[in-house]
């Protein structure tokens, strides 16, 4: 029952249409319009399945017949050089259970809802201080440099126990790590430098432990220093790239809809508003790779063992049946009162983002505080001049010049 391609299979990762910076690349939405599963081609020339439907995406991400293990034959790679780099020391998101669960459970304690809720005052302080610094320097200011990036960066440094003074070195390297355009050697070097840095830090933490994740990992004797460093790199990169881009992109979107941005001031509406932003903006634009371990019927398509699959979160999150209807706006538009809780912006299945309670708290606090303290916030350049990270695995604005 293998479906035959009717149009030219898109080349992954597909390009954005820079005239519609808030939309996923048109190749994905076009594929979604033809059906939930279609063919696509990877950068290395091999073909794979592009999964764009909501139910099918959830199946791919939660069915253990699809593997997240990068070492499996046929695993689809979206960026050049990833194969060699990831296969050497995969972090737990690139492994399957039980190994994935064993490593993940070592850090789940730090992301419990209760633990994250207790951190809200600390996050609020970080947000307020970043805004103090930005406003003291005067308008116009780049919101990415002064707010969107430092906030999550300070928060994850606090949790991990990484000295904030070292941030520039790791911010630059994590950028490289997530870049589609960076060459293989550059990416490999960035990853090794980050691993070395965190490995050395973990050794120091073993002797002088603090109340932080790295210290807790370093104190365990069932982890090699490399495993500690790999988990550290994952949390560091995931913790600041994703949230930073979400804050930047959300702000740009909210500035387009000032009448809706006012909803953030209502504490009862705030959590739902953030879910809608997560749904609509789905910054993991490149999709989530998996490989089929056996033949699986996915909708009307037979995916064969050893075939690569890319689950596209952004198109799943625009499912009209699920998120539209009634008096709601179409799903490619912002509607802060929409019930968006079924979105898969954090992925789905046992690999679903571990840091989601933290991400939610940061986004709620950062966005509500930003629009409360700066009610006159506006873009300092025409929106058409904004540049976006079309080359990165995680999508967002490169810079966001604002005035207030």
């Amino acid at each position, binding site marked *: 029952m293998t479906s035959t391609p009717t149009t030219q299979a898109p080349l992954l990762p597909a390009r954005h249409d820079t005239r519609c910076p808030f939309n996923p690349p048109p190749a994905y939405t076009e594929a979604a319009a033809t059906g939930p599963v279609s063919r696509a081609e990877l950068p290395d020339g091999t073909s794979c399945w592009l999964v764009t439907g909501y139910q099918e995406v959830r199946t791919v*991400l*939660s069915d253990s017949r699809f593997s997240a293990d990068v070492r499996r034959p046929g695993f689809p790679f979206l960026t050049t050089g990833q194969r060699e780099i990831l296969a050497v020391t995969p972090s737990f998101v690139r492994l399957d259970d039980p190994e994935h*669960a064993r490593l*993940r*459970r070592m850090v*789940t*304690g730090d*992301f*419990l*809802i*209760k633990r994250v809720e207790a951190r809200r005052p600390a996050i609020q302080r970080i947000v307020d201080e970043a805004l103090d610094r930005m406003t003291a320097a005067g308008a116009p200011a780049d919101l990415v440099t002064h707010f969107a990036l430092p906030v999550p960066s300070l928060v994850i440094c606090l949790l991990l126990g990484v000295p904030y003074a070292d941030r520039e070195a790791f911010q630059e390297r994590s950028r490289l790590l997530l870049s589609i355009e960076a060459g293989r050697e550059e990416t490999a070097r960035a990853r090794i430098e980050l691993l070395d840095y965190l490995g050395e830090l973990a050794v120091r933490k073993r002797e002088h432990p603090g109340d932080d994740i790295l210290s807790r990992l370093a104190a365990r004797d069932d982890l090699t220093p490399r495993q500690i460093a790999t988990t550290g790199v994952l949390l560091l990169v995931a913790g600041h790239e994703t949230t930073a881009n979400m804050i930047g992109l959300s702000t740009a979107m909210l500035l387009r809809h000032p009448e809706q941005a006012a909803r953030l001031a209502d504490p009862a509406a705030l959590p739902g508003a953030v879910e809608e932003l997560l749904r609509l903006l789905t910054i993991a634009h490149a999709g989530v790779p998996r490989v089929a371990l056996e033949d699986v019927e996915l909708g009307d398509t037979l995916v064969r063992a050893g075939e690569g699959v890319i689950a596209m979160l952004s198109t799943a999150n625009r499912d009209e049946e699920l998120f539209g209807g009634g008096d709601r706006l179409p799903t490619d538009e912002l509607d802060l009162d929409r019930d968006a*809780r*079924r979105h898969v912006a954090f*992925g*789905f*299945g*046992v*690999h*679903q*983002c*571990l840091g*989601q*309670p933290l991400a*939610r708290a940061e986004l709620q606090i950062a966005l509500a505080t930003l629009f409360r303290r700066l009610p006159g916030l506006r873009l300092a350049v025409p929106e058409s001049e904004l540049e976006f990270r079309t080359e990165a695995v995680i999508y967002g604005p490169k810079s966001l010049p604002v005035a207030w």
Partner: protein
Amino acid sequence: MQVSVDPDRCCSSGQCVMTVPGFFEQDDEDGLVRIRPTAPEPAQYADVRLAAELCPGGAITVTEGAEPVGHAGHGPAR
């Protein structure tokens, strides 16, 4: 409505606690799911169903039935 949870399938995402804070809880140490020893309030039914649907590990089972049937404890076997 009868609800059971399987901690072996739980990946501590906290999604259920966020969806129905009064009913689902996370263990303080490992974050594994637990449920309150009382059946959910009828007003919570819709959210409990949603929590089961959204649980990324498939750890929550909801059995609709004659009301009220109470509570199924921690594991699926009890």
